[in-house]
């Protein structure tokens, strides 16, 4: 295979990372050699980043804000905080490393503030100390014309508890990657995800949970709904290493297709090297239950209203993982409002 011809977005990204060190250098090298990932790359087969980024030529700016202030490259968070990813139009790179010290209990509210035409590729590294509890609540309310690619790596120490709930409405291409190293030994991981995609939008939840120590517990529930020409992607992977005996891991993905031209793609994957484990995954795709719809209309609800209620009750389940009632109600309200728009 000869050298590839770079797209304008790739050229801009290569220039942007010129002279960079550490992971940026590795990222630049990957783009130089292979370009941005296309559907030919196994991990991106349903999210063609190279194609989505066509038309983006300029470099932009992206940064993380913590409680409204520009964040340093690395920081310690030991109490509740608001995290924001802000990006201007064009291709950009942002990075942040967060330490949650041993024993701390933190709720991290994460929001994306993206301009039209913003293509931020963000790297987030989170490390939980022993016995720490982190609840990360992510709201991906992004403009249609943006391409957020957020890759988060989380190190979960023993006795610690990591809970992540993400609600996204997608965009031209939205990639939400979560990679967790799970130490087991009393540690617990919960991952909740909800996507509601209006016409022409795309959202991709990709996650891996690597169980490295014994007795880890993981629970993942992702639910989604896609309208016409929208595409929902779920790629979940549980890896259980030989040392991770007595792992208890469960993965569920369910999605509703709201229109004839909707598309849902799923790949729930298990890679297991330990024999005394409980691992399961379930995946179900279908349309709204016509019987339930009929029943509700019989009770006097309009079709639009009945559909919205059914979709809402279907989608809202992962939001119940949020421990803070106010925060949960806030996200549920945003979801309801968007459902009204789909109607």
């Amino acid at each position, binding site marked *: 295979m000869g050298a590839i011809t770079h797209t304008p977005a790739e050229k801009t990204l290569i220039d942007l990372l010129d002279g960079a060190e550490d992971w940026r250098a590795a990222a630049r090298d990957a783009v130089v050699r292979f370009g941005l990932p296309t559907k030919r790359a196994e991990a991106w087969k349903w999210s063609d980043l190279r194609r989505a980024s066509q038309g983006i030529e300029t470099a932009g700016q992206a940064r993380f804000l913590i409680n409204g202030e520009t964040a340093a490259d690395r920081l310690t968070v030991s109490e509740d905080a608001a995290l924001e990813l802000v990006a201007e139009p064009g291709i950009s790179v942002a990075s942040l490393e967060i330490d949650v010290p041993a024993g701390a209990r933190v709720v991290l509210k994460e929001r994306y503030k993206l301009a039209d035409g913003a293509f931020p590729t963000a790297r987030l590294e989170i490390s939980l100390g022993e016995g720490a509890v982190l609840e990360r609540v992510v709201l991906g309310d992004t403009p249609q014309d943006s391409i957020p690619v957020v890759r988060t790596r989380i190190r979960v120490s023993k006795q610690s508890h990591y809970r992540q709930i993400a609600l996204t409405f997608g965009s031209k291409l939205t990639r939400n990657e979560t990679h967790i190293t799970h130490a087991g030994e009393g540690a617990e991981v919960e991952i909740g995800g909800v996507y509601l995609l209006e016409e022409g939008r795309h959202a991709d939840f990709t996650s891996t949970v690597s169980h490295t120590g014994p007795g880890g517990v993981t629970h993942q529930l992702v639910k989604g709904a896609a309208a016409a020409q929208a595409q929902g992607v779920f790629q979940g992977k549980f890896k259980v290493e030989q040392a991770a005996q007595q792992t208890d891991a469960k993965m569920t993905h369910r999605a509703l*297709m709201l229109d*004839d031209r909707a598309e*849902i793609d*799923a790949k729930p994957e*298990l890679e*297991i090297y*330990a*024999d005394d484990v409980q691992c*399961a*995954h379930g995946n179900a795709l279908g349309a709204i239950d016509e019987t339930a719809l009929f029943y509700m209309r019989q009770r006097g609800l309009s079709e639009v209203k009945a559909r919205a209620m059914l979709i809402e009750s279907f989608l809202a389940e992962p939001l119940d993982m949020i421990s803070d009632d106010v925060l949960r109600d806030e996200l549920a309200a945003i979801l309801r409002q968007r459902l009204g728009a789909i109607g």
Partner: protein
Amino acid sequence: MAAVKETIEDVKKLEADKYKYGFTTDVETELAPKGLNEDIVRYISAQKNEPEWMLEWRLDALERWKQMKDPTWAKVEYPPIDYQDIHYFAAPKAGAKYESIDDVPEEILKDFEKLGIPLKEQEVLLGVKGAAESAAEARQAPKVAVDAVFDSVSVVTTFKAELAKAGVIFCSISEAMRDHPELVKKYLGSVVPTSDNFFATLNSAVFSDGSFVYVPPGVRCPMELSTYFRMNAEGTGQFERTLIIADKGAYVSYLEGCTAPMRDENQLHAAVVELVALDDAEIKYSTVQNWWPGDENGKGGVYNFVTKRGDCRGKNSKISWTQVETGSAITWKYPSCILRGENSRGEFYSIAVTNGRQQADTGTKMIHLGKGSTSRVISKGISAGRSDQTYRGLVSVHNKAEGARNFTQCDSLLIGDQCGAHTVPYVECKTPKAVLEHEATTTKLSEDQLFYARQRGLDEEAATALLVNGFVREVLQELPMEFAVEAQQLLKVSLEGSVG
């Protein structure tokens, strides 16, 4: 738990040193020189007296193959294969096809007898001597017609005369090319195109023998058809090609078995199987794959890289794959169904056992194109020793496939902590008028039954064991009688403690 212990013991019995098909048979063999090039392809074609169009087809495949690379996406590891170090053709001397069973060399008959495939049957029932007078008579006693493939050639096909009475064509593919060129031309490569994938392309260039079946409209094939593949010669590979066509309203059940001698080298088996089911037709294809798996240290064994695909071309057609996979050092195999016809149905039932250093990456593809097409996938994997096993499957529903329905269940069981079991299902859906379900736990599926069994006084473990055992039996029951016995011996295992 007793059930688990039993399982472990049963799997141990399958260990390498217990392989009872590892003998070699001394037959004078004619070998093509090692290597792969145009001359070898011409040699193979000439050996088989093929028509010119067939040679062109092969040479075209060879050209394409030269441009291709070994696939690397499967979760299997093996040193690079030297494709120039293989004999692509090996045939017992003294002619490829024997006119009568009496002409078949005694060594080969004995070889098949040792494998439990008596080609002589009862002399009366023998195809070459005297066939039953009518199809009705043939139906009286259950019989199996066998196409015996020894290295690169089909040595004998039994019950041909009797099958011909019903209009069924059952012969080696080389014979079919000569006697029924119109059928071969029409269907060969129509399900698995020449350049479908690396191994299928290789097969297209060098395929030797294999079976050809054509069941005419409205005919229910009066007996089970089967092919027994035997790799005997050293340094060879086997590249057979099977083509089965069930015309409108026809039904056929086909069995495939395979074994190879124990050798230190890795032998390559790259087969292609194509099935075509027209309107209202049904094909049932069953495999018991027991190629030499290599010893416990991973030395030797067969690389089983096969492409199997069925095309449900007509409305209400049905193709069902049932496989029991216990052999081969490496398995790379995805029997698939293209559900093109309206209300067509695809089924895949699989039990795979890996032990020693075996690696298996296997599963199925169900491509739903037709309205109301349905499919069912049941896969049970058992890994033991230091083996590694992956279920890799695709369920794809196109936007025209309204009313499509799929149910997939894949369970794995690990025995010991040195092995691996993986599940990689792909699901792609482009219409809301489809229902796709993928399940991976036994308890979840049978919650109601479990409750029922417990109500009858069984504790949870006993109830689960009962249900799981019952379920495996159901998969085994998908196999025709003749194979079920053999398969059960290979697989007296319960699936206690399954993981997704």
